[in-house]
């Protein structure tokens, strides 16, 4: 098909689509009343249509939808959670009142590592970096009065993802919302836990089984759920550069695809529900290019390597969070500016949802005021700057297109190397990615210390005698309260049912059947996160690091 024909088809298709999903405005225009077109550049003689495609079309360099933010802004999704389920529920309802459009749950470390609040390993950690969830009872309190058929919820949970997803389904059922009406995401990306984030429980093999079980279960039961969020975010936070973030994330993605295929799933049955999660770091244009390169790489791999037929399988949809490790403890208000430019790169890179960090996160959990400024930052970008009024505005920039190509090339070299090592799982087991990241992170540290890299307010433009801002404190009694709550639960629930369900889980773990339905029954019987993961620990063993 020749280029003009493709463009014409695209225009017709887009007009048709707009009948169902109208744009935000009848007419977009600048302050000087210049009309803003939906798309620029594509009608040019020299437009490289095979390389860039058109928005919403293969290979999606310019965006995963045809009208992008002219139809609907990205989802503003602030990661939140601390202390008890009740406190976090309050913060969620506050954020929704403030105009946030999706929820994102932070769990505390015991929950993420499958320990109950009364486990010795949980000491000092209960409710600290997120909300403490021991049983369905806590999940009910967390989601109280939040209409689960209307909000989409992202849960940062990996090793015990099945358990928390099951709890979410069970709470929805109690609210009268069927599982097929639920939308949201579980992170469920164990490979990057081994590489960079550290909240793993089980060894790779059973972990991959839990993941593919979720893929299969959701395909039939929770079809609107994003079953995994393949995350470069934490790889970047651990010190990787943009190319490494891109390459290792895609390599991990390919490992999940291979595992699902091996488990007997069809590519087009699960690939449309795979989601991604990237970091928005400081180097503005490189970040924009990274997002564009990621879309193009994934589309090519899905179509060409795996023969996926459904365009939804080709589309890389992603969440973005601004880079936490770029925040300074010194002069924390400067972080608002960092977050703004990082967020802008994510928007210009075409993110589907965005979390903007709060200014005080290098010091502690954000206060309510800081969290509000972070959300307002996104709202200002969306409503005041006009950056969302045309699709992929940086396309055709010599610099951005060249960076996009180069990042893709470097990432492809990494992918080839990882493939030679037997794929991402075995590269992780050999510590390859961990070493590469550490090398980059140490080099960066040295550059900062010798002044080659300047961090404003930290190694240059410093001030003396900084005033210390007010910080959020988590209730130090929470650990004890949560323990008491757990004790009461254990004395009031149907203990026989609990024991029976846990035994069913044990035998299912030994067999081959999908574990999700069994885990769902466990949580409905008020088995705790620690009990369920405890049985799986006994059956699967524990990962102990490289």
């Amino acid at each position, binding site marked *: 098909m020749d280029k003009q024909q493709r463009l014409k088809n695209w225009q017709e298709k887009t007009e048709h689509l707009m009948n169902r999903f109208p744009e935000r405005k009848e007419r977009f225009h600048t302050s000087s009343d210049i009309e803003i077109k939906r798309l620029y550049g594509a009608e040019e003689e020299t437009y490289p249509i095979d390389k860039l495609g058109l928005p919403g079309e293969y290979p999606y360099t310019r965006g995963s939808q045809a009208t992008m933010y002219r139809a609907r802004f990205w989802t503003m999704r602030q990661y939140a959670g601390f202390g008890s389920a009740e406190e976090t529920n309050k913060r969620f309802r506050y954020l929704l009142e403030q105009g946030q459009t999706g929820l994102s749950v932070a769990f505390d*470390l015991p929950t993420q590592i499958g320990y109950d609040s009364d486990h010795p*390993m949980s*000491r000092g*950690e209960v409710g600290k970096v997120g909300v403490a969830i021991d049983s369905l009872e806590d999940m009910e309190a967390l989601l109280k009065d939040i209409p689960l058929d209307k909000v989409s919820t992202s849960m940062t949970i990996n090793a015990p993802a099945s358990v928390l997803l099951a709890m979410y389904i069970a709470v929805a059922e109690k609210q009268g919302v069927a599982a097929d009406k639920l939308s949201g995401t579980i992170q469920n990306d164990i490979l990057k836990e081994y590489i960079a984030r550290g909240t793993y429980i089980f060894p790779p093999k059973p972990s991959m089984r839990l993941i593919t079980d979720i893929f299969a279960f959701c395909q039939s039961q929770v079809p609107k759920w994003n079953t995994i969020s393949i995350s470069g975010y934490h790889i970047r936070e651990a010190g990787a550069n943009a190319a490494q973030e891109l390459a290792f994330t895609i390599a991990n993605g390919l490992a999940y695809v291979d595992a699902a295929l091996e488990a007997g799933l069809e590519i087009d049955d699960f690939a449309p529900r795979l989601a991604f999660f990237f970091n928005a770091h400081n180097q503005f244009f490189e970040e924009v290019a990274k997002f564009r390169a990621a879309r193009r790489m994934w589309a090519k791999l899905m179509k060409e390597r795996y023969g996926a037929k459904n365009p939804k399988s080709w589309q890389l949809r992603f969440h973005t969070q601004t880079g936490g490790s770029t925040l300074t*403890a010194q002069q924390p208000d400067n972080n608002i500016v960092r977050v703004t430019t990082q967020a802008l790169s994510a928007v210009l890179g075409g993110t589907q949802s965005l979390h903007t960090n709060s200014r005080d996160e*290098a010091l502690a959990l954000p206060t309510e005021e800081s969290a509000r400024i972070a959300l307002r930052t996104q709202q200002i970008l969306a409503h005041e700057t006009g950056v969302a009024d045309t699709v992929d505005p940086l396309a055709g920039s010599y610099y951005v297109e060249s960076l996009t190509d180069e990042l893709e090339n470097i990432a492809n070299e990494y992918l080839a190397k990882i493939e030679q090592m037997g794929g991402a799982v075995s590269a992780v087991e050999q510590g390859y990615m961990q070493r590469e990241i550490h090398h980059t992170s140490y080099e960066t540290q040295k550059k900062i210390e010798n002044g080659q890299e300047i961090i404003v307010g930290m190694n240059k433009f410093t001030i003396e005698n900084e005033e210390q801002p007010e910080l959020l404190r988590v209730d130090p009694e929470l650990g004890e309260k949560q323990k008491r709550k757990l004790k009461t639960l254990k004395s009031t629930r149907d203990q026989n049912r609990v024991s029976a369900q846990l035994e069913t889980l044990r035998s299912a773990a030994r067999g081959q059947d999908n574990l999700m339905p069994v885990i769902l029954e466990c949580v409905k019987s008020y088995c705790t996160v620690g009990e369920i993961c405890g049985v799986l620990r006994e059956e699967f063993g524990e990962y102990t*690091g490289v």
Partner: protein
Amino acid sequence: MKKTIRVLIAKPGLDGHDRGALVISQALRDYGMEVIYTGLRQTPEQIAAAAIQEDVDAIGLSCLSGAHNELFPEVMRLLQERGADDIIVVGGGVIPWEDIPFLESKGIKKVFTPGTPTVETAKFIEKAVFERDGISSSKGAATPPERIDHIGIAVSSLDEALPFYVNQLGLTLEAIEEVPSQKVKVAFIKIGETRLELVEALSDDSPIGQFIQKRGQGVHHVALGVSDIQSRIDELKANGIKMINETPVSGAGGAQVAFMHPSSSHKVLFELCEKSKKEEA
């Protein structure tokens, strides 16, 4: 032969953020220390046991999850219980400023907050270990001053100012003398362990003369008593502190003195001051 310092870098609790722990491990190694990294998810018991078994000089605890107030003191308690509390323990991570005094009261020697250069941490550990072992350090951080030797106050005229100190406050005048190197005349007034030094300019182009012209009378400098002044100056210089006097000059009372540049010391003019042995006695 110089001692090789052994350090255990440990991640207590469930926190999985180990970028900082890995970076500091390598930085300490590059500085010449032997470093053992525990890996993630260590209980305080495991950390204390590893430190004792590995016979380390120091432990670096890294925590970004907010569990530090519970886990760091527990490590200290266990070390003490096992008679290993001579091990120097420092901490780092996301630790709010307001928690630092509490942690230090539990025996944590120092908490390094985000943005600390790794070499600063290395020097601190080295100095703390050398001090503990009674080894004098060659490149550690400067040895702390021992006392406030005196506080310098610029006055327009000694004759006018002295009655206030001697008659109104009832303090004792110790001595009056001229210091040619500074073109000043000074009066020492004893107060407890230290002194007030009233300084009058002998000429308008002397430092005190210029000070009074620019800013009027008032507090001029704080003199810190040190021993071995030249090596103190060298250490400060090595740590990037600007000195007005890079070699000591003769001050009042036969002392050797050197001024630091206020731009390096948050706008306070500090004088290093070494009294001769006779004077001390």
